[in-house]
């Protein structure tokens, strides 16, 4: 008996669920050679709005978890990624047209990046925070705190690009709405399947597929988004996005490389400084 091909339906990932686009739209994802791979949901501005609502609802709980706990949750995702290695390799070879060896290298790099950022969860505060010297009988302490919701335009390099922008944003306790690569969204949705079976609370990571040019302006101007990561927005009118974000004083990261760095974590935090008396007499 011949096996019937079962094409997979790729949907959005919002608030821990896999909804279709509110608009009902889909678009074809094709392989590098032009052959049909899958239909993916084409997110609308209302999907972006719903994602922000889900991210806002999840933010206090995620930020309230201890750094150690967040680290454990992130490590667990790395374990699950490792278990799905073959699937990711297959998706990357088909969408990006690279060899299995190159795809394998990308998946390994993505997992390594994830583990590297997970390690920072209970350490970045010690590095980025400080006990400031002040002239008086006071402790003066600065600590970084998550900024809130980060909207991200992911780079086109499917899995590695996505992991490199999402992991640093959530390490500190932010929640994210990420627009996956338009041409290579498959690994983004597979990552969502990993997240859905992990310990990450629903809404911490929300993944939209579709046109970044269409959705990003709505996220950039959204008053309930606190920061904008334009790492993958090189091909968009990203200066306009930056201008739209200025209205609500968002933190903005302009397009550039996505190498692992502590700066990516600290860039989406706010510094809180407190004074406390050294003694009570």
């Amino acid at each position, binding site marked *: 008996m011949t096996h019937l091909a079962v094409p997979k339906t790729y949907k959005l990932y919002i608030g821990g669920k896999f909804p279709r686009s509110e608009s009902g739209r889909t678009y074809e994802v094709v392989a590098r050679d032009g052959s049909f791979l899958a239909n993916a949901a084409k997110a609308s501005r209302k999907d972006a*709005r719903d994602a922000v609502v889900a991210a*806002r609802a999840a933010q206090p709980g995620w930020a309230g978890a201890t750094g150690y706990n967040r680290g454990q949750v992130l490590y667990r995702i790395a374990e699950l990624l490792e278990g799905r290695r073959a699937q990711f390799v297959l998706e990357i070879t088909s969408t990006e047209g690279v060899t299995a060896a190159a795809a394998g290298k990308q998946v390994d790099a993505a997992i390594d990046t994830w583990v590297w950022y997970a390690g920072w969860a209970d350490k970045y505060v010690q590095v980025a925070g400080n006990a400031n010297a002040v002239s008086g009988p006071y402790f003066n302490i600065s600590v970084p705190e998550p900024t809130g919701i980060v909207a991200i335009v992911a780079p086109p390099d499917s899995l590695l690009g996505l992991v490199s922008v999402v992991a640093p944003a959530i390490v500190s306790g932010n929640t994210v709405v990420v627009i996956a690569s338009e041409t290579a969204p498959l690994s983004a949705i597979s990552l969502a399947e990993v997240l859905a079976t992990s310990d990450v609370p629903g809404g911490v990571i929300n993944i939209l597929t579709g046109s970044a040019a269409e959705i990003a302006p*709505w996220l950039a*101007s959204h*008053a*309930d*988004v606190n920061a904008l990561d334009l790492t993958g927005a090189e091909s968009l009118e990203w200066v306009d996005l930056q201008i739209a974000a200025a209205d609500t004083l968002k933190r903005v990261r302009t397009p550039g490389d996505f190498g692992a760095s502590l700066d990516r974590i600290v860039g989406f935090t706010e510094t809180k400084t407190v004074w406390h008396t050294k003694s009570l007499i």
Partner: protein
Amino acid sequence: MTIQTPVALAPAQRALSVLGGDLTERSLRLHLEGLSGVDAVGLEQRAADLGTRSIKTSSKAWALDRIIELIDLTTLEGADTPGKVRSLVAKALTPDASDVTTPRVAAVCVYGDMVPYAVAALGSAHANGGPNGINVAAVATAFPSGRASLRVKLADTADAVAAGADEIDMVIDRGAFLSGRYGQVFDDIVAVKDACRRDNGTHAHLKVILETGELNTYDNVRRASWLAILAGGDFIKTSTGKVAPAATLPVTLLMLEVVRDWHRLTGEHIGVKPAGGIRTSKDAIKYLVTVAETAGEQWLTPSLFRFGASSLLNDVLLQRQKIKTGHYSGPDYVTID
């Protein structure tokens, strides 16, 4: 079996004209139990259909403004303070400080002991029951349970009216209603209506809360609605907001049908107030559609339809800001209650 002598009820004008001269517990029971049963599946289907209308652009902008004008901005917490009431009134007067064209709400709804603070805070904006300005509504009659003697309930009501309340939200005795003691519920409402009378002959508007979440069946909701109207209620209100489920679309649709039937029968307009659980503009717009399609568009006025809500206002303001500025707004841009 003993034959009971007919128990005469308080002579309420409407009941006398509809039920005939001989107003007794028995004639009231015969009338209420003679109402046709409610087709629950049909009712829910109709409500669901009315909820699927797509309201866009200019109609949506109109609907949002109208929703604000229909809101009874409410705070009914044990932790209420005069300060909390003053901030509620400030919000009622200026819902959105970033846009002065935002309409004002219909009324503020507070506990009876908070009425003097609400009246003082409103100052010249106090409507005094008229159409211009903001009314003060007070919940009375041992809200939300209604478990007190009639003497206490009447004192509670008279106290709120004396303090300047323009509208009284009373609760019916659900225990008596469910036990079939319709006459007792009827007499209570008539007595409270009487307690709403002011010295100058006018009286505070009476809203009768049925607490539909405790009435169990749609048939009971229909009977309670008729009962409240016959006894003299100016408004019928779904819920206290303290019992789940609070207002639902099917229950509100059913009450609107009763109000429509009453209008056809007597030409008189009775108001409806869904309260509790309406938190989003989307939900509120469904209610507007239901009102317009059931009772008619002339019911979309503060004297005939109200939303009992607190968090609804903020969601409506966010939607208004979205329409005005063209980008999504966030909870940081409206006041916290």
